[in-house]
């Protein structure tokens, strides 16, 4: 199968300090790839480069055949991103946030309902717009007119996912999406992400936690000091990951298990 994302020899220097060294990665549709590593290993830098938020110092990046460094605008239309920061405006309602991002992503006005229009709330099976569809998928339709600042951390993260999938991107990038979530919210988010990933998407998720969100992962990459040190196919255990990662991650795992 053709790769949806191909990164070749990506490198990043901050001043004279290399934080990413020759990272190559190929991901196809349907894959759920976890990038694991301790804090400072280079996970977030890698994800920001894949999201076109940061330019690499070296290497190339193609997303669905588009040269993402030369034509970043076109590549961004293919990417949805969820990070531990919500990227959500707290003084706008859930619907207003999605209306704004919908317009920024060029979603046609016919797919964005007017804020004051009456929407049939009984049409659970046939959403009238992309916004309604996205909010229903993350179970926030009933709270669509509430300000985002009134949402719990878990609800905010669900709204973040709705924002990320609004334009139906084939590539979903998740940067430490479980940070700050309690066990229940994390379990709900994990299920939502699995459901989202199954929709013919490729998902790349960074995390330093071995206890959450790894269900459904088809491949794990362990990054250390800016290099991919290990690559594991599905079926790995948290213990194996902990052994391959640095001591700080192993300590985190043992704490969680205890």
């Amino acid at each position, binding site marked *: 199968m053709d790769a949806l994302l191909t990164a070749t020899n990506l490198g990043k220097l901050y001043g004279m300090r290399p934080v990413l060294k020759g990272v190559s990665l190929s991901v196809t549709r349907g894959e759920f790839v976890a990038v694991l590593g301790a804090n400072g290993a280079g996970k977030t830098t890698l994800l920001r480069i894949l*999201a076109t*938020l940061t330019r690499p110092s070296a290497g190339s990046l193609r997303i669905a055949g588009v040269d993402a460094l030369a034509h970043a*605008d076109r590549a*961004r239309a293919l990417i949805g991103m969820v990070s531990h920061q919500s990227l959500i*405006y707290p003084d706008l309602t859930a619907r207003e946030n999605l209306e*704004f991002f919908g*317009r920024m992503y*060029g979603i046609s006005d016919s797919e964005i309902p007017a804020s004051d229009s009456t929407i049939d709330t009984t049409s659970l099976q046939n959403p009238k717009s992309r916004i309604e569809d996205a909010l229903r998928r993350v179970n926030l339709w009933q709270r669509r007119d509430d300000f985002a600042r009134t949402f719990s951390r878990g609800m905010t993260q669900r709204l973040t996912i709705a924002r990320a999938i609004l334009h139906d991107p084939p590539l979903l990038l998740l940067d430490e999406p479980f940070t700050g979530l309690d066990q229940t919210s994390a379990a709900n988010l994990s299920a939502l992400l699995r459901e989202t990933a199954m929709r013919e998407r490729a998902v790349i998720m960074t995390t330093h936690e071995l206890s959450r969100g790894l269900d459904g992962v088809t491949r794990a990459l362990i990054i250390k000091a800016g290099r991919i040190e290990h690559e594991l196919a599905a079926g790995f255990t948290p213990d194996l990951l902990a052994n391959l990662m640095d001591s700080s991650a192993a300590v985190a795992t043992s704490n969680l298990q205890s």
Partner: protein
Amino acid sequence: MPLFAKQVLALIRKDILQELRTRESITAMLVFAVMAIVMFNFALRLRVDSFLPLTPGVLWVTLVFAGTLGLSRSMSSEQINQCMDGLLLAPADRSVIFLGKAITNVLFTLAVSVILIPVMAILFDESLMQAGVWLVVLLGVVGYAGAGTLIATMAASTRAREVFLPILLFPLALPLLVAAVIATSGFLDQLPLSEFASWIGVEVAFLVIFWTAGTLLFEFLVEG
């Protein structure tokens, strides 16, 4: 309508909606501006008989300081929840963000000017309500918002952005301030336009330089 224009309008609409909800920028700018001219009025009245020579300077210093408050808030609102990343993830040219933010800053500062200038005309007993003065204010505000949005973007990623913004912006805006003060004086003194038209030209040049620079350089600022 082209997608580029729709994206710029979406950003302006979002910022106005946020302002209507929070009333943080315009309220802060307006309260500061009115308080400043009231204080100038009392302070200067003790030493001078006529405000006429001072009015343009007081007007522009007040507008520049008030405008800086708005600029700072305009970019800092995008730091909350790292919303700037949300903007940068959109499949839009980076200049969309610059233009959307700069136009919003123009609208907010003009909204303050519309209230400030009549108040100042009453307090200082000057004929500020004339088309020429409004033209100078429009050009000055547009130019200042262009330069300010560019500098506010640079300052936004620093810890001491409230300090960095005026330190970087005020020296840069000095030519605009001088041109605006002289052009405003020309209209208030009812001089022939030919005597100060070149200063209006300086305002236009400043505006063109910084809006062009912002449109072209914004990408490097936000990705640097």
